[in-house]
């Protein structure tokens, strides 16, 4: 094999000497070419050196994409994250702003050269990064594309990322991997499921409150923004944020300051936001349920996790991995995936995605003979009525008892609101009253 080359597509004369120095340090040939020349075949990497021609470089980027996997890095003088994001969007493997990022570029090229020479299997990453991305198991092209893009943007900690994907596709895992791979990795990672917080408590949960801010605020409490200071705040199901709070979040993102509920002073926070939604936020914007300005602030880069049904053989890779992990948890022998199991895995569409698959494997592992997975146990068969609060629905019991108990539980769940309880049970208020043993006028 010939000595590999560093190919530089030079749009201006800036930093020309830096390329010679880099090539010498890396012990590779240097091939400086014009934009319309063909880059060297044995390239370690291609640098598109903008040097004041940044707009032209962006226009050129899509045409430089290499099918052989050789990365094309854009190098320029622009220091804004937005420019970096745009470069990556157009296909750059990464963007380096010189002179600030020269050392970073040197390390990246050095790692590439090592990999190219076969001294290392891949671009150098930390064990934590490999572990974080490694948890997103699978080798399908659909998943790999998303993970490759994620790996490229991870180091730009100032960039806000929006993760889209159906429920159970692994959005939190990807958010965590982005955090671990970012310059904020030493800071905290705080995950919040906005759908799980009552709207009236959301502001206090996110931003904290001072003592006496509201009736129950007997003492000050820090919010999750403060807990995430210096790290990443992952806002899952961000579409559930109430509109007034969306404005407060936007201000926090723009000013990098937050104010606790009831506070007179704001405080600085250094937090990277990663937001996620299982529905298309743009639709919520059109319905007027999500602020357009916040949407564009969050949507600097969108990463979409594919549903399991679009991930080909990944379902088997995941199933085998889950079978191994869960067998260890339950002290059982690790089962092999038989042809019957593989057929069953492929024939199901997995609407609940990876989470559903994991639960199915757990169920089959526990209910099949040790060391086996019987696909008939993937899904739950006979279902009894769900047992509500405190196991309050008596079962087995007479139908009258079950109905009376259901009425009582529905009333409790609806804070004594009989109309709401009746609606939940899909019966009239009068019938609810009879079930509760109340006279009509009491209801």
């Amino acid at each position, binding site marked *: 094999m010939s000595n590999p080359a560093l190919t530089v597509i030079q749009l201006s004369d800036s930093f020309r000497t830096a390329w010679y120095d880099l090539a010498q340090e890396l012990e590779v040939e240097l091939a400086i070419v014009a934009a319309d020349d063909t880059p060297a075949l044995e390239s370690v990497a291609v640098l598109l050196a903008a040097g004041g021609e940044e707009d032209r470089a962006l226009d050129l980027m899509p045409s430089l994409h290499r099918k052989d996997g050789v990365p094309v890095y854009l190098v320029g003088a622009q220091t804004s994250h937005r420019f970096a994001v745009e470069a990556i969007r157009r296909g750059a493997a990464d963007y380096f702003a010189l002179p600030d990022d020269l050392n970073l570029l040197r390390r990246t090229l050095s790692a590439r050269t090592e990999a190219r020479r076969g001294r290392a299997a891949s671009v150098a990453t930390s064990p934590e990064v490999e572990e974080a991305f490694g948890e997103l198991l699978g080798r399908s092209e659909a998943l790999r594309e998303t993970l490759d893009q994620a790996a490229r943007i991870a180091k730009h900690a100032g960039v806000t990322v929006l993760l889209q994907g159906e429920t159970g596709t692994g959005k939190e895992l990807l958010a965590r991997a982005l955090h671990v791979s970012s310059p904020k990795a030493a800071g*905290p*990672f*705080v995950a*919040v499921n906005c759908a*799980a*917080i*009552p709207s009236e*408590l959301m502001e*206090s*949960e996110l931003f904290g409150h001072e003592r006496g801010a509201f009736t*129950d605020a*007997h*003492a*000050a*409490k*820090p919010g*999750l923004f403060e*807990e*995430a200071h210096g790290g990443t705040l992952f806002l899952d199901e961000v579409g559930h944020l109430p509109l007034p709070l969306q404005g407060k979040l936007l201000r926090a993102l723009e000013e990098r300051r937050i104010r606790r509920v009831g506070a007179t002073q704001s405080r600085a926070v250094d937090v990277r936001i990663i937001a996620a939604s299982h529905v298309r936020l743009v639709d919520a914007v059109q319905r007027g349920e999500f602020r357009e300005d916040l949407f564009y602030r969050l949507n600097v880069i969108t990463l979409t996790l594919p549903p399991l049904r679009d991930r080909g053989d990944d379902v088997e890779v995941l199933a085998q991995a889950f079978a191994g992990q869960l067998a260890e*948890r*339950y*002290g059982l022998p690790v089962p092999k995936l038989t042809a019957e199991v593989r057929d069953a895995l492929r024939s199901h569409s997995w609407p609940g995605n990876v989470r559903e698959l994991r639960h199915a494997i*757990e*169920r089959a592992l*526990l*209910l099949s003979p040790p060391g086996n997975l019987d696909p008939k146990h993937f899904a*739950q068969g006979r*279902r*009894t*009525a*769900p*047992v*509500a*609060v*405190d*196991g*309050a629905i*008596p*079962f*087995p*019991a*007479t139908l*009258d*008892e079950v109905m*009376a108990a259901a009425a*009582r*539980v529905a009333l*409790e*769940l609806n804070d004594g609101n009989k109309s709401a309880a009746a609606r939940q049970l899909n019966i009239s208020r009068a019938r609810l009253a009879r079930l509760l*043993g109340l006279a009509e006028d009491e209801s």
Partner: protein
Amino acid sequence: MNSSIPTGSSVPNDPLRSARAAMQAGQFQQAWNALNRLAETVRQTPDWLLLAAVTHFRLGEFARCRATALQARDGFRGRGDVDGETRAENTAAAGAFALGQLADAEQGFQRALGLAHHLGDEFTTARCANNLGNVAYYLGDHARALGFYRLATASFENAGSWQGMAEAWLNSAIVWRDDANVDQSRDAADRAIAAAERAGNGRLLAQALAARAETSLTLGDVDLARAQVGRALDLSREYADPLAEADALRILTGVERLSGNLDRAMNAGEDGLAIARRLEHPWAEAELQRDLALVLGARGRAREAQAAYEAAAAAFERLGSAGRAERMRTRASDLAKPS
């Protein structure tokens, strides 16, 4: 619920070393003996008082724990040691919590939380938040409880404590379960299991698997729940954790009841109740009485079921959980009505 109390391991005084070592080994009576052998001058220090308070807590002497921890707190405050003051405040509040003095516990945990957050002490912040979640849960304020558990989980993660995370997720799973929010409960239990495995804590793993089994039961998947609670029961016995065993037996009671095996359900429930009584753990006792009442009701033994509900109500009331007590009384009076 899983309470977070200090272990006493961060008290640095040399004369206290052997007591501290005994504490860490779980030999609480030996720790108390070692503490008592120390000179009178040492026994007046806030460090000694705090370690003594933690020992009292571990020995189940909650009133002495609280009184001694408050002395320690004042001592630390007098010498301007905010870190010590925070730990002592948290311990005193834990004592109040165990005594069912929920208002005092809440005030103490809140003060300790404020101090710990001000110091940037993530671990103590997390402990206090977890304990405040427990108070809110006992008082029946589930939304606030979950808020504190969220803060606890984030702070425990910042502090790198897998064990703490497992506790906070487990507590969240229990609250979601009570709210009949099965998906959230299952997700929280799964996270608790993963964190307990990372922490290498078999006792917590048993509790988390039991919580997971209960979500399967709530979903009506009796077969899966039986397999999961079986593993939880094995682990609780392997790690000699009677409280986890009592909880697993309670869930097994529900599994057998929903399977129609009422004799087995009675046996499991009575075994669990015996353990809870031996441990003098009123919360576990109340939950077991409540679930046994369902079995008794299903067997047509209405009078005994009524008595079990009344016993559960009394226990919940002692713990300050008025809403739960009221619900138990309602069920008892329902049984008294002619059908």
